[in-house]
């Protein structure tokens, strides 16, 4: 639905609905909720071995420890012992086998969190160690998979590569990423009367927490109510894996018949929960001297960890984004979903899309260096076309392509050509520093690939004083969804924003809600809320038309009043009309529903139209490397990003800035190091470094692409949560551009491009400087 001109709330950069409450500390998170008398606290008992048979659990010392009430293990689960995921391969507590260091075997429940934590360390484990699979290529060789391999082909890549004038064959890997939500995983389970439950959970998917908890308790879903007012960050880490903490709390509460809270400390959170999937690539690409790709074969070995979790759709989305913005006529993608004895890797902003794009963007940089062309030229040459060359490798026609226009616009805005020259000059002058630059596009598919998730519900209540309460199936994790929903409802009813209040996400208000994920929060939930508000507006308009004896088409609602365009009729305050409606027994609340149109695809062949539309963007990053140590920094970035018609530019720009910096952290700083035994050594902020304010460049310019969505989304806006993260691939490519300028060989580097990796990549350039590159 298009946004009419008179609207006053949407399109405005209004502040986040909780901004002041969050700054002043008034905003409550799960751990801020006053605990009910008798509340107990649980701490996890974790495996110290990556793979082995669990022989014995000696809990005697722990049970004798101060304040301890109980030790909970799998035998205390009244219902299903595995999480009811599509592939039910993850036990709630390890049964006879442990499968990663940190896997939760049970809980110690005590009167305080400290007592529980101290006692959990006193549980003695006897585990017969078995060989652990920690290398994905070993997993591929042994066919040690959580799901069968998937292959997507179009044309004949092998033939095209054989016939191409030039080829490159290479490999590299991209590391995982810890979500590092400020608020860690937390849940508080309160038994109610008659086998009913209230669970406070910091979750992106209250409906799934409800389902999982009911399953573990052996109850029907209607007995469990899950509530979440807000999360202190989610980033995908609370899409599925918020459920474990909630299920653990519920099982412990059921056993002890008292409320139980589970709040992981940061180290536990790192050791227990999954990360972004690390990807390992092997590729062979055939191209010509203009840089045009003729054929591409790529293997993606995905490190899924010990259980399936969301690895299937994550690996699928990587396949769907292996093209990014480029037409690949002959392509052969092989995707292995490797089972390793590590944390179960899970959703993370971008959900496989970033890992898909990383491969093709890295290949673009390789081709440019091999051909001696500017990488932007090579990227442009391979872009999707408008009339032809516009079908993806999964058979979807790209109908809304604008990456070409965005790149051209940004190229001018950031003065690309002049800066290229300046960088070349700088590099000639400087022995110590080397600079590089890259401009990369983003084309990101919007919709859940699980088609049934693309539905949403909302509830709008108008009270008889004219105040309005909104509730919908989405969750707030700081991204501003609730703010946008309030703006939309305010505009439909023509009232000021202060009249619209949003309340906690609650499974008893909107059932079966999808996760707030896949960037779809506003597309789905704001549209559902809009539909609910339209129902009420239509009833109010009809009443006003009847009261004033005017045509309904003449009535409009804006600025807290109701008007008619017919002459001589009085306008009316919204509140007064609402009171009249109540007295005349007009229903003042409504539900609303929305489902995304046009989407369909075949999960077996991965073909069809999985996405309603694409979000686009481009970024140009300039970096500087200190050749003496490999230390590097982002000097400047210019971003042009497509959010359609923005519902809230302040929030959208915030999402773009945050997404970009988070992506930059993934590709440059945030390094997960597991030792040879499978222990995660970087499990705290002392060793795992997310970007700090000092890493944000002084020149950080974000511009919104000023065109509405071509598809009929809520006010023609576009999804914004995930796509900007992938703009940070420009930083990665700028670093590789700089490394390439120190020598003549192929640039060989894994991500994240830590100082150490950059240092050795430059060292390789130096050593290959004299010898001709065999691949060139």
């Amino acid at each position: 639905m298009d946004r009419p001109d008179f609207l006053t709330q949407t399109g405005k950069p209004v502040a986040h609905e909780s901004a002041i409450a969050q700054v002043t500390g008034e905003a409550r998170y799960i751990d801020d909720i006053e605990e009910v008398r008798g509340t107990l606290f649980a701490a996890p008992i974790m495996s110290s071995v990556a793979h082995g048979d669990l022989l014995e659990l000696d809990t005697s010392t722990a049970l004798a420890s101060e304040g301890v009430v109980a030790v909970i293990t799998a035998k205390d689960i009244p219902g299903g012992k595995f999480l009811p995921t599509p592939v039910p391969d993850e036990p709630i507590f390890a049964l006879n086998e442990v499968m990663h260091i940190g896997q939760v075997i049970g809980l110690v429940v005590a009167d305080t969190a400290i007592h529980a934590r101290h006692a959990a360390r006193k549980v003695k484990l006897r585990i017969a160690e078995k060989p652990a699979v920690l290398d994905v290529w070993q997993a591929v060789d042994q066919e040690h998979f959580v799901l069968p391999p998937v292959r997507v082909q179009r044309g004949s890549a092998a033939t095209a590569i054989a016939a191409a004038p030039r080829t490159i064959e290479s490999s590299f890997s991209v590391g995982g990423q810890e979500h590092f939500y400020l608020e860690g995983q937390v849940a508080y389970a309160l038994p109610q009367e008659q086998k009913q439950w209230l669970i406070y959970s910091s979750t992106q998917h209250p409906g799934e927490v409800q389902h999982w908890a009911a399953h573990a308790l052996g109850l029907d879903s209607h007995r469990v109510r899950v509530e979440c007012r807000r999360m202190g960050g989610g980033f995908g880490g609370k899409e599925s894996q918020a459920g474990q903490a909630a299920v653990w709390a519920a099982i412990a509460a059921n056993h002890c018949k008292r409320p139980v809270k589970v709040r992981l400390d940061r180290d536990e959170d790192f050791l227990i929960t999954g990360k972004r999937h690390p990807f390992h690539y092997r590729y062979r690409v055939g191209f010509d001297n203009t840089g045009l790709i003729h054929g591409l074969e790529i293997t993606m070995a995905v490190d899924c960890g010990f259980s399936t979790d969301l690895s299937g759709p994550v690996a699928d989305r990587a396949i769907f984004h292996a093209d990014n913005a480029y037409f690949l006529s002959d392509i052969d993608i092989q995707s292995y979903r490797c089972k390793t004895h590590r944390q179960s890797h899970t959703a993370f902003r971008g959900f496989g899309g970033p890992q898909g794009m990383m491969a093709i963007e890295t290949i673009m940089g390789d081709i440019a260096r091999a051909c001696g062309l500017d990488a932007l030229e090579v990227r442009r040459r391979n872009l999707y076309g408008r009339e032809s060359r516009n079908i993806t490798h999964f058979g979807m026609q790209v109908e809304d392509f604008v990456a070409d226009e965005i790149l051209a616009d940004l190229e001018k805005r950031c003065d690309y050509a002049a800066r290229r020259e300046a960088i070349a000059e700088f590099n000639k002058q400087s022995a110590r520093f080397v600079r590089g630059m890259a401009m990369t596009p983003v084309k990101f598919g919007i919709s859940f690939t699980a088609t049934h998730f693309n539905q949403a519900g909302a509830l709008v209540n108008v009270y008889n004083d004219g105040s309005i309460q909104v509730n919908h199936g989405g969750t707030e994790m700081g991204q501003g969804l609730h703010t946008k929903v309030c703006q939309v409802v305010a505009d439909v009813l023509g009232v000021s924003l202060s009249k619209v209040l949003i309340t906690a996400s609650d499974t008893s208000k909107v059932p079966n809600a999808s996760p707030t994920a896949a960037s779809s929060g506003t597309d789905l939930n704001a549209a559902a809320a809009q539909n609910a508000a339209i129902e009420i507006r239509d009833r109010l308009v009809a009443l006003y038309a009847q009261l004033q004896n005017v045509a309904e088409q003449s009535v409009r609602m804006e600025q807290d009043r109701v008007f008619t365009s017919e002459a001589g009729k009085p306008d009316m305050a919204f509140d007064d009309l609402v009171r009249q409606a109540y007295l005349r027994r007009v229903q003042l609340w409504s539900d609303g529903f929305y489902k995304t149109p046009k989407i369909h695809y075949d999960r077996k062949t991965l073909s069809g139209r999985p996405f309603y539309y694409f979000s686009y963007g481009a970024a140009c990053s300039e970096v500087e490397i200190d050749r003496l140590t490999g230390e590097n920094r982002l000097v400047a970035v210019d971003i042009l990003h497509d959010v359609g018609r923005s519902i809230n530019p302040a929030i959208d720009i915030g999402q773009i800035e945050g997404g970009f910096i988070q992506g930059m952290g993934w590709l440059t700083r945030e390094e997960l190091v597991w030792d040879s035994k499978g222990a995660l050594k970087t499990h705290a902020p002392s060793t795992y470094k997310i970007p700090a304010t000092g890493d944000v460049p002084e020149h950080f310019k974000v511009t919104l692409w000023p065109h509405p969505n071509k598809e009929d989304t809520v006010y023609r806006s576009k999804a914004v949560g995930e796509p900007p993260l992938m703009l940070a691939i420009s930083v990665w490519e700028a670093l590789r551009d700089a490394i390439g300028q120190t020598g003549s060989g192929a640039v060989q580097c894994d991500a994240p491009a830590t100082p150490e990796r950059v240092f050795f990549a430059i060292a390789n350039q130096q050593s290959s400087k004299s010898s001709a590159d065999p691949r060139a």
Partner: protein
Amino acid sequence: MSAITEQNNLGDLLKYEAPNRYSRDVATIAAGQNLPLGTVLGRNASDGKHYAIDPAATDGTESAIGVLANAIDATNADRSDAILIARHAIVAKTALVWPIALTGAQRISYEQQLAERGVLVRESATLGGNLANGSPIGDSMPLLIALGGELVLESGKGMRRLSVDSFYTGYRQSRLEKGEVIRSVSIPLHAHSFFRALKLSKRQDDDISIACLAIGISLENNHVKDVRIGVGGMAATPARAVQTEAVLKGKPWSQATINEACGILEAEFSPISDMRGSADYRKKAIAGLLQRFWLESQEQAEVA
């Protein structure tokens, strides 16, 4: 854009107090003042009311008697609901509010006055704690080694002095004996031609070093007269790069000398590989930091 600036709260100020509100008094703030939390207070001997201390006064308010624990706006009238931290407490140095134009010496004297009342002013961390902890990747030890720092250790038996570079005996082990404390750290006066402490970490800010190099040189006729090098992250303890120092000493201050020294420094230590960096990288990067020292010394005109 409107902004909300969070003021210091009681937690920022009060780090310790005695039970049962023993540390607290209720006090009257005299009219005409708007005092933030953390203001150091004096008492006027004649009216018994409290004022922000004034070193120039002679009415009693020239002496500190405690610290204000809540913000009090007494602009228009006396306020008798002020909470005074008067005894047996620890307050954070950063949260104290002093009169403008107070000299450093005056402040020290006021802190002593507070200490006499049992109100201790503390920094949140100390150099001595860092030294005693002795982490091989702490950054103050290489710095003190390069500066020729000495520790004064004291116990019931008396005092003794020990150079920082001879203080450590193994991973987090030192010559500090049972019952002994680090009383002070002394650093000799230097006339360095050039001094730098360079740290390498995955992230620029707020990160623990992969490797750290602190180095000071004194030049005479463009030859290295004296040099001291402290390193971190290269061994089980903070260490002094004696071999590299030996190579540099007496040589002309030149690129050739530095290149030779870099080769020695790269081989002088056998660091470990861990989650911060590999042994190979540490060796090459510490040499890179020495090159950086050279390049930065060349950018500084007076070093020649």
